C-alpha cells in the first residue's frame, strides 16, 4: 500500500528546485595552443536565495591546486598522480584573477584574499574570499565582472592538456555555495574530493583554432569566425552547476554525431522491469529523444559503436529507473592515449569515458570496461549532476550511490546479453571482494580529505557504499529500493540533498525507519558478521542424571552423546541446540534457514541485538543444515565462511576443485583488469 502511494507520487520528470539559476555565468575564453593558456572574461550573476544576508563571497580557484608541489592537493597526492598515470614535473597550472569589479563599478581586487578553510596551508591558493563592501540581502543579486588568465597543467586530475588535446575542467573562478546561517561552503581543492556548486545558466564563448574539434557542456548556439584563422563557438547550458569543454585538432580526434531514440534504444525487458518495480505505465516511463556527440580519437574510431551503444543503454537505464534525462544533448569524450587521466570523469552534459585500441580485439574485448566507465560517468548526470550533493563532505552520496546504480545496470546488461562482446562477470561479487580483501573497518560518512589514505577513500566512497545500498535493497526489497531512488530523484533533483535526505526518502519508500541501518553502515565502521558457532543434536533418551520426583531421586536412563554417533537411537524426537553468534559490531536482523534431514525447512529471524543466541528445536529428524542469511541479503557481510553448517559434511566432488576456483578468479581478474 505504502509502495503504491510512493509510486503514485512519482512524477514524469524532476522538479526544478528553488535554487536553479542561483549562479549564472557568461564567459568569453580564448585558448592559446602554443602556451596552453586561457585568457578570459567572466560575468557572474549570483542571487542570494537564502534567508540570510551576507557581505562576502567565496570563489573556487581550482587550477591553483596545480600551482606548486606544496598546495594542499599536491601534498595530499604525495607526488604521484590522481590515478597513477601522470605526475606533474614542471607543467604547473594556475588561474589568476586580473580584474574583478562589483556591479560594474566597484573594484574588488583590494578586497580579495586567499583563505584556507580546511587547513592552514599557506601555499594553497585554491579558495579566495572577497569582501563585497555591502550587504547582499536575501533575494538580492550581485553581479561580478572578472578577467582572468589560466595556465592549463599537463593533464592531471581530470583537466589539462596532452600535446594538442585539451580537456578543460575546473578552469574558471567559480562561486562556492552560500548556505545561509552556515555561511559559505567553499572547500579547498583536495586530492580525494570533487566539487560542489549552485545551479545556473551558462553562456560560454570559446575561441580556438578554426578547424579544431570542440565539445562542451550544453549545446552549441552559435559559431563565428575570429581573427587569426580562429573561430568563436558559443555554448549554452541551463540548470547545470559546472561547465567543461574539450578541444583537439581534427587529425587527432573526430566527432560522431548520433542520437538516443527511445523507440530503438530502450530494451523491452528493461521497460517491463521498470513498470513492474515502479508501478508505472509505459506511457509514464516514456523517455525523450536526445542528441549524443561522441568525440573519439581517430585511433579508437573502431570502438565508437560500442561507446555509443553503452551511452544509449545508460540513458535508457537511468531514464527508466531514476527519471528521464532532461537535457537535449550529452557529449562523450574518450581521451587519447597519454591523456587517460582526463577520462572517467563527469561534468554536466559532458562525460569522459575511456578505451584502449586493443579493446577491439579478443580477448581484451571481453572486458566490460568501456560499458562500465560509460555507464558510471553517465550515472553521474543524476548522482551529482542533478542531485548536486556536496562531494567534498559526502563523496559517498554521488560516487557510492552511482556505483550501486552502475552495478545494477551492468548486471542487467550482462544478464540480458545486450553487449555480445563482453563475457559474464560477477559485478557484485567483485565489489564485495574488493571490500573484503583489505580487511579494514571503514567509515563512509567522513569528509573526503579526512581519509587517512586515498585508497580508503575509494574503498569507502565507491565499494562500501554500493554494497551498503545492495544490502539495503536486500532488506527492503528491490521494489522499495527502486521506488526509493526514483523518489529521491524526484524530490531532490536540482537541489543539494544530503545523506540524511537519501535515508529519509528510502525509509519512506520502505515503510520503515532505515536510520539505524544507515547510521551503522555509513556513519560508523561497524561490520556485520554472524556465525553458526555450535549445533548439538540428541534424542531425549540420551538425557542422563537424576530427577526429583515424589520425594525421592530417580535415575534418568540413557547416555549423553553429542548425537553424532547415535544414528541408531530409537526415539522419534530429536532435540537440537543451535547457537549463533554476532561476531561483528553491526546490529541488524538476519534470517536463518534451518533444514531437517527430510528436507523440511523453516526460517527464523534473529534480531541480533545480543552477542549470541541459542535456539532449542525439536523434530522427528536430525537437523541437516543451518544457513545464516541464506539469500545473501547482507552483501555487506564479507566473512561468510562460518555462516554455514551441515550435519553431514559435503564431499568435494571434483578432484581439482581448488584449481578450478583459482582459474575462475584468474579469469575474472583478467576481465576486470585487461
Amino acid at each position, binding site marked *: 500500500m505504502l509502495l503504491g502511494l510512493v509510486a503514485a507520487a512519482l512524477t514524469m520528470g524532476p522538479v526544478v528546485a528553488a535554487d536553479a539559476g542561483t549562479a549564472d555565468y557568461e564567459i568569453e575564453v580564448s585558448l592559446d595552443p602554443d602556451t596552453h593558456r586561457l585568457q578570459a572574461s567572466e560575468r557572474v550573476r549570483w542571487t542570494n536565495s537564502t534567508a540570510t544576508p551576507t557581505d562576502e563571497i567565496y570563489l573556487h580557484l581550482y587550477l591553483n591546486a596545480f600551482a606548486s608541489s606544496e598546495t594542499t592537493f599536491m601534498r595530499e597526492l604525495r607526488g604521484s598522480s590522481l590515478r597513477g598515470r601522470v605526475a606533474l614535473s614542471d607543467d604547473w597550472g594556475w588561474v589568476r584573477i586580473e580584474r574583478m569589479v562589483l556591479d560594474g563599478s566597484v573594484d574588488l581586487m583590494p578586497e580579495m584574499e586567499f583563505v584556507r578553510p580546511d587547513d592552514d596551508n599557506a601555499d594553497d591558493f585554491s579558495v579566495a574570499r572577497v569582501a563585497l563592501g555591502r550587504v547582499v540581502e536575501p533575494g538580492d543579486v550581485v553581479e561580478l565582472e572578472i578577467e582572468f588568465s589560466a595556465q592549463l597543467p599537463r593533464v592531471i586530475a581530470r583537466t589539462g592538456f596532452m600535446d594538442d588535446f585539451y580537456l578543460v575542467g575546473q578552469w574558471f573562478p567559480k562561486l562556492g555555495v552560500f548556505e545561509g546561517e552556515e555561511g559559505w561552503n567553499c572547500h579547498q581543492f583536495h586530492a580525494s574530493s570533487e566539487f560542489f556548486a549552485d545551479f545556473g545558466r551558462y553562456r560560454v564563448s570559446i575561441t580556438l583554432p578554426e578547424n579544431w574539434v570542440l565539445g562542451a557542456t550544453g549545446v552549441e548556439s552559435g559559431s563565428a569566425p575570429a581573427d587569426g584563422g580562429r573561430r568563436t563557438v558559443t555554448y549554452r547550458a541551463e540548470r547545470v552547476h559546472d561547465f567543461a569543454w574539450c578541444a583537439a585538432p581534427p587529425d587527432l580526434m573526430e566527432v560522431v554525431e548520433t542520437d538516443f531514440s527511445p523507440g530503438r534504444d530502450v530494451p523491452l525487458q528493461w521497460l517491463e522491469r521498470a513498470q513492474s518495480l515502479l508501478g508505472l505505465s509505459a506511457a509514464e516511463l516514456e523517455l525523450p529523444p536526445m542528441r549524443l556527440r561522441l568525440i573519439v580519437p581517430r*585511433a579508437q574510431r573502431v570502438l565508437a559503436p560500442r561507446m555509443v551503444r553503452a551511452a544509449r543503454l545508460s540513458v535508457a537505464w537511468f531514464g527508466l529507473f531514476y527519471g528521464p534525462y532532461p537535457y537535449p544533448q550529452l557529449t562523450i569524450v574518450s581521451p587519447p592515449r597519454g591523456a587517460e587521466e582526463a577520462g572517467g570523469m563527469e561534468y554536466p552534459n559532458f562525460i569522459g569515458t575511456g578505451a584502449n585500441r586493443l579493446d577491439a580485439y579478443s580477448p581484451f574485448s571481453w572486458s566490460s570496461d568501456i560499458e562500465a566507465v560509460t555507464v558510471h560517468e553517465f550515472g553521474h548526470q543524476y548522482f551529482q549532476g542533478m542531485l548536486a550533493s556536496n562531494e567534498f563532505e559526502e563523496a559517498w552520496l554521488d560516487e557510492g550511490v552511482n556505483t550501486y546504480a552502475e552495478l545494477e545496470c551492468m548486471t542487467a546488461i550482462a544478464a540480458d546479453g545486450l553487449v555480445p562482446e563482453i563475457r559474464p562477470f560477477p559485478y557484485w*561479487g567483485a565489489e564485495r*571482494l574488493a571490500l573484503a580483501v583489505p580487511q579494514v573497518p571503514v567509515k563512509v560518512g567522513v569528509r573526503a580529505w579526512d581519509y587517512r589514505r586515498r585508497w580508503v577513500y575509494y574503498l569507502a566512497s565507491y565499494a562500501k557504499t554500493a554494497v551498503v545500498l545492495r544490502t539495503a535493497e536486500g532488506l527492503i526489497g528491490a521494489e522499495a529500493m527502486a521506488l526509493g531512488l526514483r523518489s529521491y530523484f524526484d524530490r531532490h533533483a536540482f537541489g543539494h540533498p544530503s545523506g540524511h535526505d537519501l535515508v529519509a526518502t528510502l525509509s519512506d519508500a520502505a515503510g520503515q525507519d532505515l536510520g539505524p541501518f544507515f547510521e551503522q553502515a555509513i556513519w560508523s565502521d561497524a561490520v556485520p558478521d554472524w556465525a553458526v558457532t555450535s549445533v548439538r543434536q540428541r534424542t531425549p533418551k540420551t538425557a542422563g542424571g537424576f530427577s526429583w520426583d515424589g520425594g525421592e531421586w530417580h535415575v534418568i536412563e540413557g547416555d549423553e552423546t553429542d548425537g553424532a554417533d547415535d544414528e541408531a537411537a530409537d526415539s522419534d524426537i530429536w532435540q537440537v541446540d543451535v547457537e549463533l553468534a554476532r561476531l561483528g559490531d553491526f546490529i541488524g536482523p538476519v534470517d536463518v534457514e534451518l533444514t531437517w534431514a527430510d528436507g523440511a525447512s523453516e526460517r527464523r529471524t534473529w534480531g541480533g541485538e545480543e552477542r549470541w543466541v541459542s535456539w532449542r528445536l525439536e523434530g522427528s529428524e536430525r537437523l541437516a543444515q543451518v544457513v545464516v542469511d541464506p539469500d545473501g541479503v547482507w552483501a555487506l557481510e564479507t566473512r561468510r565462511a562460518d555462516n554455514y553448517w551441515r550435519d553431514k559434511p559435503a564431499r568435494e566432488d571434483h578432484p581439482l576443485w581448488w584449481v578450478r576456483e583459482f582459474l575462475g578468479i584468474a579469469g575474472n581478474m583478467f576481465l576486470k583488469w585487461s
Partner: protein
Amino acid sequence: MADTPSPGSGLRLALRLRKLVAAVWLMSMAVFLPAQLVMNRAVGATRANLPDSPLPPGDSMLILVEVIRPVAGLLALALGSGVLALLAWSVLWHGGVVRWWKGAGAASVQLAEILGHGIVWWWRYARLVVVAVAVTAAMLAAIWVPLKPLIRSAETAAGGGRAGVLLATGLVLTVVVMSICWLATLRGAWLLGESGRRSAVVAWLRGLGSTLRQPIRSLWTLILWSLPGFALLALPLLVEGLAAWLVLLPAWLGSAYCWVALYLSFAPKEPRAKPTISPLEPPTFANKRFPTQS
C-alpha cells in the same frame, strides 16, 4: 648430424618405457599433493559445510579468500616446492632416458637404471634447463621490448588498426619462439648425452641448429604430442562432478605418455651402444677402422 624426429618411434619407445610413463604420471600428481593437502585442510572443512544449493553471489570467492588468507604462505610454499620438484624430476628422467638409450644396455628397460642415470647426469641437464630458460627469456624480451612502444604509438595513430596487427604479431612470435626453444631443448638434451659433450650451451645451440634444419618435422612432432598432452591435462577440469575422478587418472596417464613419447620422438634412430669387444682382441682394435669401411 641430427636424426629425423619420428613420432612413431616415440610412440613405440614410450610403450617400452611404460614404467617411466607411470612414474611421470604418479610424480605429476604427487608434486601437487602438498598443495592439495593444504587446500583440503584449510578450505575443505569450510566447504564441507556449504549447502548443495547455489550460494549467494560472491560468497564462493569471499569464502575462498577468507580461509586461504591464514595459510597463504604455506600454500605458496607448497605450490612453489611442487613446481620446483616437478622441474627437478623432469630434469632427472630426461637425463636418465638419454643415458639409458645411449648406453650399451638399451635393450633392457629398468626404471631404476634410468633414474640412476638421471641422478648421475642431473646437474648436466639442469644446466641445460637454465640455458633454455635464459635464452627463452632473452628472446621474448627481444620481441616485446621493441614491440611494446610500437603498439603504444600505434594505438594513438589515426586508423589504429596496426596496434592489433602488432599485438597479434607479438603473440604469434611468442608462440613460435617458445616452440623453437622447447624443441631446441629437447634435441639439445639428446645431444648432451653424447660422449665427451659436457657443455649445455653448445648442446642447446646444436639442438637449435637441428631444429632449424628440420623445422617442419620438428614442429609437427611437437604439435602432435604436446596438444593432446595439454588437452588431457586440462580435461578433468572440464568434467563436472564425480566423473572428474574417473577422467582424471586415465587422462593424466595419457598426458604423461604424451610427454615421454614427445621426448623419445627425438631419440637417435639406434642407440649408440658401445661396440662389442671380444676379449681376444686388443682394447684399441675396436676403435680402429678398416680402410675399406666408410
